[in-house]
């Protein structure tokens, strides 16, 4: 369901309904030592937090709100100067 926080594995597909930076899922899962469950847990926490941020339009609901939150979450986790960090496990190493 496109209204729920998407599975990281689903974001690997071109037509998943969401937009994330290229290579984000791979680097984020590798950041968590390929522990999909832990990566998914931390990913969901980030998106849940971003859903309350101004990067999501205040009048956006359901699918549109989730799309904006996922895009913002992927961007901040992958494209900021602090590349490939996870705020929940403080895994700060760069992923090759």
């Amino acid at each position, binding site marked *: 369901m496109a209204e729920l926080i998407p599975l990281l594995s689903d974001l690997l597909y071109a037509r*998943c309904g969401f937009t994330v930076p290229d290579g984000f899922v791979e680097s984020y899962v590798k950041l968590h030592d*390929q522990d999909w469950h832990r990566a998914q847990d931390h990913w969901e926490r980030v998106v849940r937090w971003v859903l309350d941020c101004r990067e999501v339009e205040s009048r956006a609901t*359901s699918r549109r709100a*989730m799309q904006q939150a996922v895009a913002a979450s992927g961007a901040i986790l992958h494209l900021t100067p602090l590349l490939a960090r996870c705020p929940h496990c403080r895994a700060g190493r760069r992923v090759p």
Partner: protein
Amino acid sequence: MPTPTGEHQGGTDLVPPPREPLRHAVRRRLRSVGRHNGLRHWLSTRGIPVLLGYAALFTGNGFLIGWRRAYDVSIGITSPADTSAPVPAWFLSVAGWLLVPGIVGAVAGYAVSNAITSRRTRPLDELFPEDDDG
């Protein structure tokens, strides 16, 4: 749930993802509540839990002091001191006094306020539907 389709982008050197356990699926659904807005978000995060708490309080009192008595206490007809179990009845009475009118009033106020402020917010170009034929 529609399956994502299209080209598989990257991730070829990752271990295959495991199946999502049911408890994780439930957790993901609960964490997705933030996608809602306004009243629906409030109901999901505050309203329904409060309502369930009140329902549990009413049910407990119903078994202790009888259903009719519980109803009378909750709407203030009967004093909780006049029941066979005054301690839980006091909680029910306070909830009936404070929570229910407050919440119902807030929801009604929100609905009215929303109706008032949403007047004349429709964009003009909605008059002509989008031409799908291009």
